[in-house]
């Protein structure tokens, strides 16, 4: 068995029912999937298909109404809230649609932040933060705050931040939704390179055809069910 076949994410019969209105919304209806190390997976589907719900459950941000989700074999539904926070910090790198950097911290400090939460040494932080920001092409913008960076640059800082904690995989919720074509291409180049060179596992939810084109695997959701799961060859 090679590393490439190591299961990173596994879900079994995930159901999620939202009871926000009088009529319950069945956002996920029995989603079972496995994502392996090094996969570059896009979860696609129309609005309301359950993409974000699935990502939230995989990311340990939400709990399923029924079914289970495991990350590297650990059952997320068995974890308490504080354990989940710890787990997210150490295993999952998040990239959000609207960048969501800490506005008062510089690019360097934003990337360093999560390593501070992990109590990494100063030397280790410095080495990793600078190399990550170099890798996303922002080695010269270390001291800029988010407001001083373009949307594309902010999203690249977000990718560097997501990688800083050495996560098991990166979960990106529509990461290119707010980016122009050039920034999208640039971001996808960086993520593809990280995937290919460092075998980093990426899971996206997206509408963006450019992301779908780059993905090695495309899982399509409709009405809370997986309707197709296509792995590209070559």
């Amino acid at each position: 068995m090679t590393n490439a076949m190591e299961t990173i994410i596994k879900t079994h019969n995930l159901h999620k029912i939202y009871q926000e209105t009088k009529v319950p919304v069945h956002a996920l209806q029995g989603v079972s999937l496995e994502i392996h190390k090094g996969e570059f997976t896009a979860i696609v589907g129309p609005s309301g298909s359950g993409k974000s719900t699935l990502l939230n459950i995989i990311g340990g941000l939400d709990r399923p109404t029924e079914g289970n989700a495991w990350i590297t074999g650990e059952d997320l539904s068995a974890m308490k809230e504080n354990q989940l926070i710890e787990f997210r910090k150490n295993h999952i790198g998040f990239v959000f649609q609207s960048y969501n950097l800490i506005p008062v911290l510089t690019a360097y400090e934003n990337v360093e932040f999560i390593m501070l939460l992990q109590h990494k040494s100063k030397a280790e932080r410095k080495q990793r933060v600078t190399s990550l920001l170099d890798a996303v092409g922002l080695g010269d913008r270390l001291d800029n705050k988010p407001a001083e960076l373009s949307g594309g640059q902010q999203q690249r800082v977000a990718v560097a931040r997501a990688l800083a904690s050495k996560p098991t995989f990166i979960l990106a919720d529509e990461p290119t939704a707010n980016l122009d074509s050039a920034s999208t291409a640039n971001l996808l180049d960086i993520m593809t390179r990280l995937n290919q060179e460092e075998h980093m596992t990426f899971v996206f939810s997206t509408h963006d055809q450019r992301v779908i084109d780059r993905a090695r695997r495309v899982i399509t959701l409709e009405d809370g069910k997986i309707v197709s799961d296509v792995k590209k060859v070559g």
Partner: protein
Amino acid sequence: MNSYSQYFTLIPKIAWRNIWRNKGRTFLVIGSVTLGIWSLIFLLGFVRGLINGYIDDAISHQTSHLQLHKPEFLIDKEIQYSIPESAILMSKLTAISQIRAVSARVLVNAMVSTAHGARGLQITGIDPAQESQVTGIADRIVEGSFFNAEAENEIVISRRIADKLKIGLRKKVVVTFQNTDYEITTAAFRVAGIFQSNNKMIDETMAYTRSQDLFALAGLPENSSHEIAVLLNDVDSTDVIHAAITTLAPDLTVRTFREISPDLDLFDSQIRINTLIMTVIIMLALIFGIINTMLMAVLERIRELGMLMAIGMTRIRVFLMIVWETVFVAVIGAPIGMFLGYLTVRSLQKTGIDLSMWAAGLEQFGMSTIVRPQLDLEVYVFISIAIVVTALLASIYPSLKAIRLKPVEALRKI
């Protein structure tokens, strides 16, 4: 860096930067805290000045710091309960370095009459030189003088009594009282001076003569007295000197100004209650303003807080971040307000606040019309603690609001 040290390094660092994201709002809170603390200090300083003025007045014009009497005199106030050979005791007292001055007094309850009427007064027989050192009565002579050298049977009365008895300077009054043999004795005294204190009670009940003029009349031995008043250099040494004098004169009752005039103690405790009440009121006003501001600060960055919790910031860290932010915005204004308050109190302490507009009312209570605000260091410390407690209390609700957010829901907010 361990997890606890981050509570005091990383978290405050972010909190500090966060409060400057909306400078206008932060300055508004700083301004209101500054104003609140300044007004609190001014108010407390003013009241303390008013009461201290009253206490100082009472000490310097009435009670002195300590008084010595025969125990029986305090019960009966009979003329025969005098302290014999006061002079010997006086010389022992003046040898104590903390004692600034002493005055031996002969106290007689007498009827003072003229052709136009009569008044019951307490005649205080004194040595003018000694008395001038102990009370400020000599400085309050508005007409005539505080006794003339060599002259005998002189009396100093108040303006109020002079008006009531319709007499002026150098006029004669007849003083009648009971001597030590319980016989009525009468003598004529000439008005040497007229005083006006700022205390209605003193003005209506007191008159002064030389004690040497009273000894023979009252049948008291020379150098005796009923009361020895002791003025100290420092009010704080009252208790120490009280103990020392009690040892020196074990057969006399030595009382401090607080025992002589319990209302002074009442005022003092009133001030403490007053300080507490005013501080609570101002802090309550501030607390709601701070909560409101911090709540806004939390609600407008729900997404960001959700993101922080999503990427691994624990709830306790988020909670502490908001606590730090609240403490920062609340506490920055405090030293500024305190410094401005201190400067105000200090400068007004020198110049004084003239309340002569309300002089009539204040005189009824024996209060000076010039108030010199002052405030003890302990009040500044108390206010500092109060503002920190206020900030911490104000931080609880917004912080709880922040950590009740669910990351998944917070991230969805626009």
